[in-house]
Protein backbone atom coordinates (compact mmCIF):
# COMPACT_ATOMS: atom_id res chain seq x y z
CA UNK A 1 0.00 0.00 0.00
CA UNK A 2 1.59 3.29 -1.11
CA UNK A 3 0.46 6.34 0.80
CA UNK A 4 1.03 9.97 -0.07
CA UNK A 5 1.11 12.30 2.93
CA UNK A 6 0.82 16.02 2.27
CA UNK A 7 3.19 18.11 4.36
CA UNK A 8 2.08 21.06 6.47
CA UNK A 9 4.60 23.89 6.19
CA UNK A 10 4.92 27.62 5.65
CA UNK A 11 7.55 27.43 2.87
CA UNK A 12 10.20 27.91 5.54
CA UNK A 13 9.84 25.03 7.94
CA UNK A 14 8.01 21.76 8.30
CA UNK A 15 5.21 21.77 10.87
CA UNK A 16 4.65 19.21 13.58
CA UNK A 17 1.24 18.40 12.07
CA UNK A 18 3.17 16.63 9.30
CA UNK A 19 4.94 14.30 11.73
CA UNK A 20 1.64 13.43 13.37
CA UNK A 21 0.00 12.74 10.02
CA UNK A 22 2.89 10.45 9.09
CA UNK A 23 2.16 8.44 12.24
CA UNK A 24 -1.49 8.07 11.22
CA UNK A 25 -0.54 7.12 7.65
CA UNK A 26 1.98 4.52 8.84
CA UNK A 27 -0.91 2.67 10.48
CA UNK A 28 -2.46 2.22 7.04
CA UNK A 29 0.60 0.79 5.32
CA UNK A 30 4.36 1.01 5.25
CA UNK A 31 5.22 2.84 2.02
CA UNK A 32 4.76 6.42 3.09
CA UNK A 33 5.90 9.26 0.81
CA UNK A 34 5.71 12.94 1.69
CA UNK A 35 4.70 15.68 -0.72
CA UNK A 36 6.06 19.15 -0.07
CA UNK A 37 4.18 21.55 -2.35
CA UNK A 38 4.99 25.23 -2.05
CA UNK A 39 7.34 27.97 -3.18
CA UNK A 40 11.02 27.94 -2.29
CA UNK A 41 10.63 24.79 -0.22
CA UNK A 42 14.17 23.40 -0.40
CA UNK A 43 14.70 23.65 3.35
CA UNK A 44 11.30 22.16 4.08
CA UNK A 45 12.08 19.22 1.80
CA UNK A 46 15.38 18.63 3.60
CA UNK A 47 13.54 18.54 6.91
CA UNK A 48 10.90 16.25 5.45
CA UNK A 49 13.56 13.78 4.32
CA UNK A 50 14.56 13.31 7.94
CA UNK A 51 11.13 12.27 9.21
CA UNK A 52 11.36 8.67 10.39
CA UNK A 53 9.48 6.15 8.28
CA UNK A 54 9.28 8.26 5.13
CA UNK A 55 10.31 6.43 1.97
CA UNK A 56 10.57 9.33 -0.45
CA UNK A 57 9.96 13.08 -0.48
CA UNK A 58 8.35 14.63 -3.54
CA UNK A 59 8.68 18.37 -4.00
CA UNK A 60 6.67 20.64 -6.20
CA UNK A 61 8.18 24.09 -6.11
CA UNK A 62 6.16 26.68 -7.97
CA UNK A 63 4.96 30.27 -7.53
CA UNK A 64 1.27 29.29 -7.70
CA UNK A 65 1.80 26.98 -4.72
CA UNK A 66 3.03 29.65 -2.34
CA UNK A 67 -0.30 29.70 -0.48
CA UNK A 68 -1.33 26.16 -1.40
CA UNK A 69 -4.66 27.31 -2.78
CA UNK A 70 -7.26 24.68 -3.53
CA UNK A 71 -7.08 24.50 -7.31
CA UNK A 72 -3.30 24.37 -7.53
CA UNK A 73 -3.04 21.70 -4.83
CA UNK A 74 -5.66 19.64 -6.66
CA UNK A 75 -3.64 20.02 -9.87
CA UNK A 76 -0.49 18.70 -8.16
CA UNK A 77 -2.02 15.82 -6.24
CA UNK A 78 -4.61 14.26 -8.56
CA UNK A 79 -2.10 13.24 -11.29
CA UNK A 80 0.19 11.73 -8.63
CA UNK A 81 -2.55 9.45 -7.37
CA UNK A 82 -2.02 6.92 -10.19
CA UNK A 83 0.89 5.75 -8.11
CA UNK A 84 -0.78 5.76 -4.70
CA UNK A 85 -3.51 3.90 -2.85
CA UNK A 86 -4.18 6.69 -0.37
CA UNK A 87 -3.64 10.38 0.22
CA UNK A 88 -3.52 11.63 3.80
CA UNK A 89 -3.30 15.22 5.07
CA UNK A 90 -3.67 17.00 8.41
CA UNK A 91 -7.10 18.54 8.97
CA UNK A 92 -5.85 22.12 9.13
CA UNK A 93 -7.65 24.76 7.05
CA UNK A 94 -5.05 24.53 4.24
CA UNK A 95 -5.75 20.89 3.58
CA UNK A 96 -9.47 20.97 4.39
CA UNK A 97 -9.68 23.41 1.50
CA UNK A 98 -8.53 21.10 -1.30
CA UNK A 99 -8.83 17.49 -0.06
CA UNK A 100 -12.56 17.28 -0.94
CA UNK A 101 -11.64 18.44 -4.45
CA UNK A 102 -9.07 15.66 -4.73
CA UNK A 103 -11.61 13.14 -3.42
CA UNK A 104 -14.28 14.19 -5.91
CA UNK A 105 -11.84 14.05 -8.83
CA UNK A 106 -10.86 10.52 -7.78
CA UNK A 107 -14.54 9.64 -7.23
CA UNK A 108 -13.87 8.78 -3.61
CA UNK A 109 -15.73 9.60 -0.39
CA UNK A 110 -13.36 11.56 1.84
CA UNK A 111 -12.94 10.37 5.41
CA UNK A 112 -12.57 13.58 7.44
CA UNK A 113 -10.73 14.28 10.70
CA UNK A 114 -9.97 10.73 11.73
CA UNK A 115 -8.82 10.13 15.30
CA UNK A 116 -8.08 6.44 14.84
CA UNK A 117 -6.70 4.24 12.07
CA UNK A 118 -7.64 0.56 12.30
CA UNK A 119 -5.95 -0.62 9.14
CA UNK A 120 -5.75 0.36 5.49
CA UNK A 121 -9.48 0.96 5.06
CA UNK A 122 -11.04 1.36 8.50
CA UNK A 123 -11.06 4.60 10.48
CA UNK A 124 -12.54 6.12 13.61
CA UNK A 125 -13.86 9.66 13.48
CA UNK A 126 -15.91 11.86 15.80
CA UNK A 127 -19.37 12.88 14.61
CA UNK A 128 -22.06 15.09 16.19
CA UNK A 129 -19.49 17.35 17.88
CA UNK A 130 -17.69 14.35 19.31
CA UNK A 131 -20.78 13.02 21.07
CA UNK A 132 -20.42 9.85 19.03
CA UNK A 133 -17.48 8.02 17.50
CA UNK A 134 -18.07 6.35 14.15
CA UNK A 135 -15.96 3.47 12.87
CA UNK A 136 -16.20 3.44 9.08
CA UNK A 137 -14.82 1.07 6.47
CA UNK A 138 -14.17 2.42 3.01
CA UNK A 139 -14.86 0.42 -0.13
CA UNK A 140 -13.24 3.00 -2.40
CA UNK A 141 -10.25 1.89 -4.48
CA UNK A 142 -8.25 4.83 -3.13
CA UNK A 143 -8.60 6.46 0.27
CA UNK A 144 -8.71 10.21 0.85
CA UNK A 145 -8.22 10.91 4.54
CA UNK A 146 -7.74 13.98 6.72
CA UNK A 147 -6.28 13.51 10.17
CA UNK A 148 -7.06 15.19 13.46
CA UNK A 149 -3.43 15.57 14.40
CA UNK A 150 -4.01 15.95 18.15
CA UNK A 151 -4.96 12.27 18.24
CA UNK A 152 -1.59 11.03 17.00
CA UNK A 153 1.96 11.17 18.36
CA UNK A 154 4.56 12.85 16.16
CA UNK A 155 6.86 10.64 14.09
CA UNK A 156 10.46 11.21 15.11
CA UNK A 157 13.49 12.17 13.09
CA UNK A 158 16.22 9.88 11.89
CA UNK A 159 14.98 9.07 8.40
CA UNK A 160 17.01 9.67 5.24
CA UNK A 161 14.52 9.67 2.40
CA UNK A 162 15.44 10.62 -1.14
CA UNK A 163 14.10 13.91 -2.49
CA UNK A 164 12.62 14.07 -5.96
CA UNK A 165 11.22 17.09 -7.78
CA UNK A 166 8.01 16.71 -9.77
CA UNK A 167 6.52 18.81 -12.59
CA UNK A 168 4.62 22.07 -12.24
CA UNK A 169 0.87 22.13 -11.60
CA UNK A 170 -1.16 22.70 -14.75
CA UNK A 171 -3.36 25.80 -14.68
CA UNK A 172 -5.06 28.07 -15.45
CA UNK A 173 -6.68 28.62 -12.08
CA UNK A 174 -9.82 30.62 -11.45
CA UNK A 175 -8.84 31.78 -7.99
CA UNK A 176 -5.96 33.92 -6.84
CA UNK A 177 -4.42 34.97 -3.59
CA UNK A 178 -4.95 38.62 -2.63
CA UNK A 179 -3.72 39.13 0.91
CA UNK A 180 -3.40 37.68 4.35
CA UNK A 181 -3.93 39.05 7.81
CA UNK A 182 -2.21 36.67 10.17
CA UNK A 183 -2.48 36.88 13.92
CA UNK A 184 1.00 37.60 15.24
CA UNK A 185 2.08 35.77 18.33
CA UNK A 186 5.24 34.58 20.01
CA UNK A 187 3.29 31.94 21.85
CA UNK A 188 3.21 28.27 20.91
CA UNK A 189 0.64 27.22 18.31
CA UNK A 190 -2.76 26.45 19.76
CA UNK A 191 -2.91 22.93 18.37
CA UNK A 192 0.62 22.02 19.44
CA UNK A 193 0.89 23.72 22.85
CA UNK A 194 1.32 21.71 26.08
CA UNK A 195 -0.81 24.20 27.98
CA UNK A 196 -3.77 26.14 26.60
CA UNK A 197 -5.69 28.81 28.46
CA UNK A 198 -8.95 29.97 26.87
CA UNK A 199 -11.35 32.75 27.71
CA UNK A 200 -15.06 32.95 26.98
CA UNK A 201 -17.85 35.47 27.04
CA UNK A 202 -17.29 35.81 30.77
CA UNK A 203 -14.09 37.75 30.03
CA UNK A 204 -16.31 40.68 29.14
CA UNK A 205 -13.92 42.40 26.72
CA UNK A 206 -10.79 41.94 24.64
CA UNK A 207 -8.95 44.21 27.04
CA UNK A 208 -9.64 41.78 29.89
CA UNK A 209 -7.78 39.02 28.06
CA UNK A 210 -4.70 40.72 29.54
CA UNK A 211 -5.62 38.87 32.73
CA UNK A 212 -5.02 35.62 30.86
CA UNK A 213 -1.90 36.83 29.08
CA UNK A 214 0.19 37.06 32.25
CA UNK A 215 -0.71 33.48 33.12
CA UNK A 216 -0.02 32.27 29.60
CA UNK A 217 3.41 33.94 29.77
CA UNK A 218 4.24 32.15 33.00
CA UNK A 219 3.11 28.74 31.75
CA UNK A 220 4.34 29.05 28.18
CA UNK A 221 0.74 28.50 27.16
CA UNK A 222 -1.15 29.15 23.95
CA UNK A 223 -4.28 31.28 24.20
CA UNK A 224 -7.67 30.21 22.91
CA UNK A 225 -11.30 31.24 23.15
CA UNK A 226 -14.90 30.18 22.84
CA UNK A 227 -16.98 31.11 19.85
CA UNK A 228 -18.84 33.69 21.93
CA UNK A 229 -15.59 35.51 22.73
CA UNK A 230 -14.59 35.51 19.06
CA UNK A 231 -18.03 36.59 17.84
CA UNK A 232 -17.97 39.45 20.35
CA UNK A 233 -14.71 40.60 18.80
CA UNK A 234 -12.64 40.12 21.97
CA UNK A 235 -10.03 38.02 20.15
CA UNK A 236 -9.24 36.89 16.56
CA UNK A 237 -11.18 34.11 14.82
CA UNK A 238 -8.22 31.74 14.76
CA UNK A 239 -8.40 31.44 18.55
CA UNK A 240 -11.70 29.56 18.44
CA UNK A 241 -11.58 26.13 20.01
CA UNK A 242 -14.42 23.74 19.28
CA UNK A 243 -16.41 21.65 16.85
CA UNK A 244 -16.11 24.23 14.13
CA UNK A 245 -12.86 25.82 15.28
CA UNK A 246 -9.68 24.10 16.34
CA UNK A 247 -9.36 20.81 18.16
CA UNK A 248 -6.75 20.87 20.91
CA UNK A 249 -5.53 18.17 23.28
CA UNK A 250 -2.87 19.71 25.52
CA UNK A 251 -1.60 18.29 28.80
CA UNK A 252 -3.50 21.11 30.51
CA UNK A 253 -6.50 23.11 29.29
CA UNK A 254 -7.72 25.98 31.41
CA UNK A 255 -11.19 27.32 30.58
CA UNK A 256 -12.01 30.73 32.02
CA UNK A 257 -15.51 32.22 31.82
CA UNK A 258 -16.59 29.49 29.41
CA UNK A 259 -19.89 27.70 30.07
CA UNK A 260 -18.95 24.43 28.35
CA UNK A 261 -21.39 24.15 25.42
CA UNK A 262 -21.12 20.85 23.51
CA UNK A 263 -19.59 22.68 20.56
CA UNK A 264 -16.80 23.98 22.75
CA UNK A 265 -16.24 20.66 24.54
CA UNK A 266 -15.86 18.98 21.14
CA UNK A 267 -12.62 20.84 20.65
CA UNK A 268 -10.98 20.34 24.05
CA UNK A 269 -12.36 17.37 25.92
CA UNK A 270 -9.46 15.16 24.85
CA UNK A 271 -7.10 17.33 26.89
CA UNK A 272 -5.23 15.35 29.53
CA UNK A 273 -6.20 17.62 32.42
CA UNK A 274 -8.93 20.26 32.36
CA UNK A 275 -9.21 23.12 34.83
CA UNK A 276 -12.11 25.57 34.82
CA UNK A 277 -12.77 28.90 36.43
CA UNK A 278 -16.41 29.97 36.36
CA UNK A 279 -18.62 31.85 38.78
CA UNK A 280 -21.59 29.60 38.09
CA UNK A 281 -21.18 26.35 40.00
CA UNK A 282 -23.68 24.66 37.69
CA UNK A 283 -21.81 25.54 34.51
CA UNK A 284 -21.52 22.38 32.32
CA UNK A 285 -17.77 22.92 32.00
CA UNK A 286 -17.41 21.58 35.55
CA UNK A 287 -18.77 18.21 34.38
CA UNK A 288 -15.61 17.66 32.36
CA UNK A 289 -13.15 19.59 34.54
CA UNK A 290 -10.65 17.72 36.70
CA UNK A 291 -10.22 20.85 38.79
CA UNK A 292 -13.00 23.37 39.09
CA UNK A 293 -12.73 26.74 40.77
CA UNK A 294 -16.07 28.43 41.38
CA UNK A 295 -15.08 32.07 41.49
CA UNK A 296 -15.31 35.45 39.81
CA UNK A 297 -12.57 35.40 37.19
CA UNK A 298 -11.67 39.04 37.83
CA UNK A 299 -10.63 38.03 41.32
CA UNK A 300 -9.42 34.50 40.57
CA UNK A 301 -7.12 35.26 37.62
CA UNK A 302 -4.88 37.81 39.41
CA UNK A 303 -4.71 35.44 42.37
CA UNK A 304 -3.87 32.52 40.12
CA UNK A 305 -1.06 34.53 38.52
CA UNK A 306 0.26 35.58 41.93
CA UNK A 307 0.20 31.99 43.18
CA UNK A 308 2.08 30.83 40.08
CA UNK A 309 4.66 33.51 40.77
CA UNK A 310 4.98 32.30 44.36
CA UNK A 311 5.46 28.76 43.11
CA UNK A 312 8.38 29.91 41.01
CA UNK A 313 6.81 30.32 37.56
Amino acid sequence: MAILVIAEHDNKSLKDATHKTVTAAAKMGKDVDLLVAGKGVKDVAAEAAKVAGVRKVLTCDHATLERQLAESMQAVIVPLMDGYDAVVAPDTTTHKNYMPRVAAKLDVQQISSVTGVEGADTFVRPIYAGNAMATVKSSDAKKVVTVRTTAFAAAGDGGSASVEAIGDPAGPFKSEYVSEELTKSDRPELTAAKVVISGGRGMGSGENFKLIEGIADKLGAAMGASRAAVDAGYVPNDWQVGQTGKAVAPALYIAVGISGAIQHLAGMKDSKVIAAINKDEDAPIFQVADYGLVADLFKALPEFEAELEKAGY
Partner: protein
Amino acid sequence: MKVLVPVKRVLDYNVKARVKSDNSGVDLANVKMSMNPFDEISVEQAVKMQEAGTASETVVVSIGPSKAQETIRTGLAMGMDRGIHVETDEDLEPLAIAKILKAICDEEKPELVILGKQAIDNDYGATGGMLAALLDWPIGSAANSMKLAGSDMTVVKEVDGGLQTVKLTMPAIVTTDLRLNEPRYASLPNIMKAKKKPIDAKTPADYGVDTKPRLKTVKVTEPEARKAGIKVEDAAQLVDKLKNEAGVI
Protein backbone atom coordinates in the same frame (compact mmCIF):
# COMPACT_ATOMS: atom_id res chain seq x y z
CA MET B 1 -27.17 36.41 -10.94
CA LYS B 2 -28.82 33.23 -9.78
CA VAL B 3 -27.75 31.94 -6.37
CA LEU B 4 -28.23 28.35 -5.22
CA VAL B 5 -28.14 27.42 -1.54
CA PRO B 6 -28.05 23.74 -0.50
CA VAL B 7 -29.35 23.21 3.05
CA LYS B 8 -29.32 20.12 5.24
CA ARG B 9 -31.79 19.10 7.90
CA VAL B 10 -29.81 18.04 10.96
CA LEU B 11 -30.20 17.32 14.67
CA ASP B 12 -30.72 20.71 16.31
CA TYR B 13 -27.45 22.12 17.62
CA ASN B 14 -28.89 22.42 21.13
CA VAL B 15 -29.70 18.71 21.36
CA LYS B 16 -27.05 16.30 22.61
CA ALA B 17 -26.71 13.33 20.28
CA ARG B 18 -27.42 9.93 21.86
CA VAL B 19 -25.84 6.78 20.52
CA LYS B 20 -28.32 3.94 19.86
CA SER B 21 -27.94 0.96 22.16
CA ASP B 22 -27.21 -1.37 19.24
CA ASN B 23 -24.33 0.91 18.19
CA SER B 24 -25.77 1.33 14.69
CA GLY B 25 -25.90 5.11 14.79
CA VAL B 26 -27.30 8.14 16.57
CA ASP B 27 -30.92 8.14 17.72
CA LEU B 28 -32.89 10.61 15.62
CA ALA B 29 -36.39 9.44 16.58
CA ASN B 30 -38.52 12.16 18.16
CA VAL B 31 -35.75 14.71 18.53
CA LYS B 32 -35.74 18.31 17.37
CA MET B 33 -34.34 18.74 13.88
CA SER B 34 -33.35 22.08 12.31
CA MET B 35 -31.56 23.61 9.39
CA ASN B 36 -27.79 23.14 9.69
CA PRO B 37 -26.66 26.44 11.33
CA PHE B 38 -24.07 27.14 8.63
CA ASP B 39 -26.80 26.77 6.02
CA GLU B 40 -28.88 29.42 7.77
CA ILE B 41 -25.89 31.70 7.31
CA SER B 42 -25.79 30.78 3.59
CA VAL B 43 -29.50 31.53 3.21
CA GLU B 44 -29.07 34.87 4.97
CA GLN B 45 -26.23 35.73 2.59
CA ALA B 46 -28.29 34.88 -0.49
CA VAL B 47 -31.27 36.89 0.76
CA LYS B 48 -29.00 39.85 1.53
CA MET B 49 -27.63 39.69 -2.01
CA GLN B 50 -31.17 39.64 -3.35
CA GLU B 51 -32.07 42.68 -1.26
CA ALA B 52 -28.94 44.46 -2.48
CA GLY B 53 -29.91 43.70 -6.08
CA THR B 54 -26.89 41.49 -6.81
CA ALA B 55 -28.88 38.25 -6.80
CA SER B 56 -31.73 38.02 -9.30
CA GLU B 57 -33.08 34.67 -8.15
CA THR B 58 -32.41 32.58 -5.05
CA VAL B 59 -33.04 28.83 -4.96
CA VAL B 60 -32.88 26.66 -1.85
CA VAL B 61 -32.17 22.94 -2.29
CA SER B 62 -32.39 20.13 0.23
CA ILE B 63 -31.70 16.45 -0.26
CA GLY B 64 -33.34 14.31 2.38
CA PRO B 65 -36.55 12.76 3.73
CA SER B 66 -40.00 14.28 3.23
CA LYS B 67 -39.47 16.40 6.35
CA ALA B 68 -36.60 18.18 4.58
CA GLN B 69 -39.43 20.16 2.98
CA GLU B 70 -39.83 21.94 6.31
CA THR B 71 -36.21 22.97 6.12
CA ILE B 72 -36.76 24.30 2.62
CA ARG B 73 -39.81 26.22 3.90
CA THR B 74 -37.61 27.78 6.54
CA GLY B 75 -35.31 29.03 3.78
CA LEU B 76 -38.29 30.33 1.81
CA ALA B 77 -39.64 32.08 4.92
CA MET B 78 -36.27 33.77 5.35
CA GLY B 79 -36.70 35.15 1.83
CA MET B 80 -35.48 32.63 -0.74
CA ASP B 81 -37.57 32.54 -3.96
CA ARG B 82 -38.19 28.86 -4.56
CA GLY B 83 -37.15 25.40 -3.50
CA ILE B 84 -36.00 22.07 -4.87
CA HIS B 85 -36.54 19.01 -2.72
CA VAL B 86 -34.70 15.84 -3.71
CA GLU B 87 -36.42 13.21 -1.63
CA THR B 88 -34.53 10.25 -0.21
CA ASP B 89 -34.67 8.41 3.09
CA GLU B 90 -31.04 7.44 2.82
CA ASP B 91 -28.43 9.51 4.60
CA LEU B 92 -26.33 10.19 1.53
CA GLU B 93 -22.60 10.83 1.72
CA PRO B 94 -21.11 14.18 0.63
CA LEU B 95 -19.89 12.67 -2.66
CA ALA B 96 -23.43 11.61 -3.60
CA ILE B 97 -24.84 14.97 -2.44
CA ALA B 98 -22.21 16.80 -4.50
CA LYS B 99 -23.08 14.75 -7.58
CA ILE B 100 -26.78 15.55 -7.24
CA LEU B 101 -25.95 19.22 -6.69
CA LYS B 102 -23.72 19.16 -9.78
CA ALA B 103 -26.64 17.83 -11.83
CA ILE B 104 -28.89 20.54 -10.39
CA CYS B 105 -26.30 23.19 -11.28
CA ASP B 106 -26.13 21.87 -14.84
CA GLU B 107 -29.90 22.42 -15.08
CA GLU B 108 -30.27 25.60 -13.08
CA LYS B 109 -27.05 27.31 -14.15
CA PRO B 110 -26.48 29.38 -11.01
CA GLU B 111 -23.45 31.66 -10.94
CA LEU B 112 -22.92 31.22 -7.25
CA VAL B 113 -23.53 28.30 -4.90
CA ILE B 114 -23.30 29.01 -1.17
CA LEU B 115 -22.92 25.99 1.12
CA GLY B 116 -22.12 25.60 4.79
CA LYS B 117 -18.52 24.86 5.66
CA GLN B 118 -19.72 21.74 7.44
CA ALA B 119 -22.87 19.92 8.47
CA ILE B 120 -22.88 19.68 12.26
CA ASP B 121 -24.17 16.10 12.27
CA ASN B 122 -21.56 14.21 10.25
CA ASP B 123 -18.88 16.93 10.47
CA TYR B 124 -17.46 16.02 7.03
CA GLY B 125 -16.91 19.51 5.68
CA ALA B 126 -16.56 18.01 2.21
CA THR B 127 -19.57 18.78 0.03
CA GLY B 128 -18.61 22.32 -1.02
CA GLY B 129 -15.13 21.32 -2.16
CA MET B 130 -16.43 18.26 -3.94
CA LEU B 131 -19.05 20.27 -5.83
CA ALA B 132 -16.40 22.82 -6.79
CA ALA B 133 -14.21 20.07 -8.24
CA LEU B 134 -17.08 18.42 -10.12
CA LEU B 135 -17.99 21.77 -11.68
CA ASP B 136 -14.35 22.87 -12.07
CA TRP B 137 -15.21 26.08 -10.26
CA PRO B 138 -13.05 28.01 -7.81
CA ILE B 139 -13.91 27.94 -4.13
CA GLY B 140 -13.71 30.34 -1.21
CA SER B 141 -13.96 28.17 1.93
CA ALA B 142 -15.04 29.32 5.39
CA ALA B 143 -16.06 32.81 4.30
CA ASN B 144 -15.85 35.57 6.89
CA SER B 145 -17.01 38.12 4.33
CA MET B 146 -17.66 38.21 0.61
CA LYS B 147 -17.96 40.97 -1.95
CA LEU B 148 -18.90 40.95 -5.60
CA ALA B 149 -16.96 43.22 -7.98
CA GLY B 150 -17.84 42.78 -11.63
CA SER B 151 -17.26 39.15 -12.54
CA ASP B 152 -15.07 38.54 -9.52
CA MET B 153 -15.95 37.57 -6.00
CA THR B 154 -13.59 38.58 -3.23
CA VAL B 155 -13.80 36.26 -0.26
CA VAL B 156 -12.14 36.77 3.11
CA LYS B 157 -11.63 33.29 4.52
CA GLU B 158 -11.11 32.16 8.10
CA VAL B 159 -7.85 30.20 8.16
CA ASP B 160 -5.82 28.67 10.99
CA GLY B 161 -3.45 31.64 11.12
CA GLY B 162 -6.07 34.38 10.85
CA LEU B 163 -7.74 35.69 7.70
CA GLN B 164 -6.89 35.18 4.04
CA THR B 165 -8.38 37.02 1.08
CA VAL B 166 -8.82 35.33 -2.29
CA LYS B 167 -10.38 36.47 -5.56
CA LEU B 168 -12.59 34.05 -7.45
CA THR B 169 -13.64 34.29 -11.08
CA MET B 170 -17.38 33.61 -11.28
CA PRO B 171 -19.12 31.21 -11.37
CA ALA B 172 -17.91 30.13 -7.98
CA ILE B 173 -18.55 28.19 -4.78
CA VAL B 174 -18.45 29.80 -1.36
CA THR B 175 -18.74 27.97 1.96
CA THR B 176 -19.85 29.96 4.98
CA ASP B 177 -18.27 30.39 8.39
CA LEU B 178 -19.94 31.58 11.57
CA ARG B 179 -19.04 35.24 11.35
CA LEU B 180 -20.26 35.94 7.81
CA ASN B 181 -23.58 37.28 9.09
CA GLU B 182 -26.33 36.77 11.63
CA PRO B 183 -29.25 34.86 10.16
CA ARG B 184 -32.61 36.54 10.51
CA TYR B 185 -35.69 35.03 12.08
CA ALA B 186 -38.53 34.60 9.65
CA SER B 187 -41.47 36.89 10.44
CA LEU B 188 -44.98 35.44 10.68
CA PRO B 189 -46.16 37.11 7.43
CA ASN B 190 -43.10 35.74 5.66
CA ILE B 191 -43.78 32.26 7.03
CA MET B 192 -47.29 32.53 5.59
CA LYS B 193 -45.97 33.80 2.27
CA ALA B 194 -43.47 30.96 2.12
CA LYS B 195 -46.30 28.43 2.09
CA LYS B 196 -47.22 29.63 -1.39
CA LYS B 197 -43.71 29.58 -2.81
CA PRO B 198 -43.05 26.67 -5.20
CA ILE B 199 -40.98 23.61 -4.29
CA ASP B 200 -39.99 21.21 -7.09
CA ALA B 201 -40.27 17.58 -5.99
CA LYS B 202 -37.45 15.38 -7.27
CA THR B 203 -35.69 12.13 -6.45
CA PRO B 204 -32.01 11.17 -6.83
CA ALA B 205 -33.06 8.92 -9.75
CA ASP B 206 -34.15 12.04 -11.68
CA TYR B 207 -30.51 13.06 -11.83
CA GLY B 208 -29.17 9.65 -12.80
CA VAL B 209 -26.23 9.77 -10.44
CA ASP B 210 -24.69 6.91 -8.53
CA THR B 211 -25.45 7.45 -4.85
CA LYS B 212 -24.20 4.12 -3.53
CA PRO B 213 -22.46 4.61 -0.17
CA ARG B 214 -18.70 4.20 -0.19
CA LEU B 215 -18.35 3.96 3.55
CA LYS B 216 -19.83 1.24 5.71
CA THR B 217 -20.55 2.22 9.28
CA VAL B 218 -19.03 -0.61 11.30
CA LYS B 219 -20.25 0.83 14.58
CA VAL B 220 -21.08 4.05 16.38
CA THR B 221 -20.04 4.26 20.02
CA GLU B 222 -20.09 6.71 22.89
CA PRO B 223 -16.87 8.66 23.29
CA GLU B 224 -14.81 7.87 26.36
CA ALA B 225 -16.39 9.70 29.25
CA ARG B 226 -14.26 11.92 31.45
CA LYS B 227 -14.43 11.07 35.11
CA ALA B 228 -15.85 13.72 37.40
CA GLY B 229 -13.21 15.95 38.97
CA ILE B 230 -13.07 17.96 42.16
CA LYS B 231 -13.72 21.55 43.14
CA VAL B 232 -10.79 23.46 44.57
CA GLU B 233 -11.14 26.12 47.24
CA ASP B 234 -9.02 28.86 45.77
CA ALA B 235 -6.30 29.78 43.31
CA ALA B 236 -3.55 28.58 45.66
CA GLN B 237 -5.05 25.11 45.78
CA LEU B 238 -5.49 25.09 42.02
CA VAL B 239 -1.80 25.80 41.48
CA ASP B 240 -0.88 23.16 44.05
CA LYS B 241 -3.06 20.50 42.40
CA LEU B 242 -1.87 21.28 38.88
CA LYS B 243 1.74 21.19 40.00
CA ASN B 244 1.91 18.42 42.57
CA GLU B 245 -1.06 16.15 41.85
CA ALA B 246 -1.52 16.35 38.06
CA GLY B 247 2.05 17.36 37.27
CA VAL B 248 1.00 19.36 34.23
CA ILE B 249 2.69 22.68 34.99
